[in-house]
């Protein structure tokens, strides 16, 4: 059963966190290194997705760990260490994104569905013989799904990553990016529609 396993894993993670936190707080030798080695790889994966530049992603991870070391005494242990570190690297990555020279927003209208004058879709969709979610969950589809996300224009990709992948709420994304919550929702919807179009050839029928 999934729930008890999850609960056991969560409990073990919390126990491991508690030991590591004690070591970090008393400055035990090797504790910082253990933190970096335990969580660094995943944090770099998150930063790479958001920033796309390897150099910026590495800078973000370094800055995130230095922030974490500095604030370790404020960490109250309500969340898992992994969750806390994840939020820090997302925030640092967003600061880096904001500091970049703003690019003009690319249109993704060509990836949105078209409609006839009577309001019906211009295209017929085919659900195929296998449910779409099961088809896209196959191992061999993972590279294509990741590539499709990377193919989205930056303004849309960032919001899709923050909302759907990194689990940041609409209001917080709006505040971090300096746009309205409605703009976040609209861009997220368009990004998902564009992603569907990009993956359409794998969903049973060629896309538009």
């Amino acid at each position, binding site marked *: 059963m999934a729930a008890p396993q999850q609960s056991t894993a969560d409990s073990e993670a919390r126990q491991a966190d508690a030991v590591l936190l004690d070591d970090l707080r008393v400055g035990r030798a090797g504790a910082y290194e253990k933190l*970096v080695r335990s969580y660094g790889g995943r944090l770099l994966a998150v930063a790479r997705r958001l920033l796309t530049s390897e150099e910026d992603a590495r800078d973000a991870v370094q800055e995130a760990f230095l922030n974490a070391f500095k604030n370790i005494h404020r960490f109250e242990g309500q969340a898992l260490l992994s969750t806390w570190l994840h939020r820090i690297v997302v925030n640092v990555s967003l600061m880096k994104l904001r500091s970049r020279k703003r690019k003009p927003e690319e249109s993704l209208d060509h990836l949105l569905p078209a409609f006839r004058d009577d309001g019906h879709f211009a295209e017929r969709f085919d659900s195929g013989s296998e449910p779409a979610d099961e088809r896209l969950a196959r191992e061999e589809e*993972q590279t294509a799904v990741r590539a499709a996300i990377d193919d989205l224009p930056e303004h849309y990709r960032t919001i899709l990553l923050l909302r759907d992948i990194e689990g940041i709420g609409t209001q917080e994304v709006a505040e971090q990016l300096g746009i309205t919550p409605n703009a976040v929702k609209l861009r997220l919807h368009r990004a998902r529609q564009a992603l569907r179009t990009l993956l359409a050839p794998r969903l049973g029928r060629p896309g538009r």
Partner: protein
Amino acid sequence: MTKLTCRACAEFLADYLSGELEIEVRASFEVHLDRCRNCRCYLEQYAAVIKAGQTACARENERAAPLPEELVRAILEAQKLR
């Protein structure tokens, strides 16, 4: 009850999936969905790509290589200098 077009339904997909549609709009949406196979298929695919992105990125996190050694060293050196 308002009769919705496919175009209107497509605009409501995100709010429908997040449970944010008002009751009346939701009812109209579901009536349209019952009658429109094309919209049911589009909704299925829209939901599938959200899940697919989450699955692919979760796998990417799980399989992330260890941090490059030079970056581990750089972080620990930077910490010592603080």
